[in-house]
């Protein structure tokens, strides 16, 4: 760093070599990193007990996920302004219709950063007859670690989170997951 007077004539080499090693490591590090956008998003909850979901549905009926511990629960986080949410909605309707007679699955929608009035209009327009929690959903979303809607969590009987699906689901996909997890 500073140039001390005197000393052996090899001082420069002794200083340069360790610096060179550190810098080579740095360049190697930068060269081997994937672009940030391709790194996976964390999913911390697989295999964990699903966080509590309770609240008043649009129809005024109280929903509590613990009342459904012997069923599969599909938890769908959505908002009315999100395009993929609109796109996946018919699939959820179809899925719910398939399972309604069997009573083995319950779908619950949780609004994400959206107004209750919008939610009501959304379900009036696009159909869907299942519990929809529209008020004070922030804590639920934070508990599930929702970062961007739509996000769908598949909760198995016993309340354990089996899978997380990002960016829209299809009815067949959900059925496939339930089947491969040994249910229904």
């Amino acid at each position, binding site marked *: *760093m*500073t140039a*001390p*007077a*005197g000393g052996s004539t090899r001082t420069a080499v002794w200083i340069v070599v360790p610096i060179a090693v550190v810098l080579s490591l740095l360049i190697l590090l930068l060269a081997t990193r994937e672009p*940030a956008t391709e790194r996976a*998003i*964390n999913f*911390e*909850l697989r295999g964990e007990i699903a966080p509590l979901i309770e609240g008043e549905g649009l129809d005024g009926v109280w929903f509590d996920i613990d009342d459904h511990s012997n069923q599969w629960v599909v938890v769908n986080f959505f*908002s009315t302004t999100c395009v993929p949410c609109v796109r996946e909605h018919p699939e959820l309707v179809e899925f719910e219709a398939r399972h309604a007679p069997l009573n083995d699955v319950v779908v619950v929608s949780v609004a*994400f*950063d959206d107004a209750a009035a919008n939610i009501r209009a959304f379900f009036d327009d696009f159909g869907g007859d299942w519990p929809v929690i529209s008020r004070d959903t*922030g*804590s639920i*979303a*934070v*508990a*599930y*670690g*929702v*970062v*961007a*809607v739509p996000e769908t969590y598949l909760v198995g009987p016993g309340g354990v989170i089996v899978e997380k699906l990002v960016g829209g689901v299809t009815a067949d996909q959900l059925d496939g997951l339930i089947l491969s997890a040994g249910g229904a």
Partner: protein
Amino acid sequence: MRPRVLSWLTLVVVSLSVLVFVAVDERSPATNADKAYALATEFACPVCQGQSVAESDVPVARTIRREIRVWVDEGRTDEFIRAQLVANFGEDIDYTPAASGVTSLVWILPVVVGAVALGGLAVVFRRWRDEPDRTANADDEAIVAAARRRR
């Protein structure tokens, strides 16, 4: 010289007492909103690029902000809130690297490097002190004199 010494003494006393006063006196205690805002700046918005929860306007940041406020209002500790968010969103939501394990390096390395640099400086200064002063000899004086004449 006396008044000057007195003046410096007064200065030190004044400065220290002001510092102690401002450190001890809390005229306006932080409100819950302030606490929540300060906390929100310490977490990364999970979907944004390089913005904190306090800064971003995307829904998830708004949601987390509100939740932090709820926790603060409930009287939760900072540690609880930190642990909750890390558990739900992953370690990378926390802007403060943990002071344990591999991440502690980010705290330790600068201190180590700083200590080495200071130690190096101390060594160099010791060497310089022990080195004899160079004094101008007659030849040097002659060169300087010649240079002066030329101007």
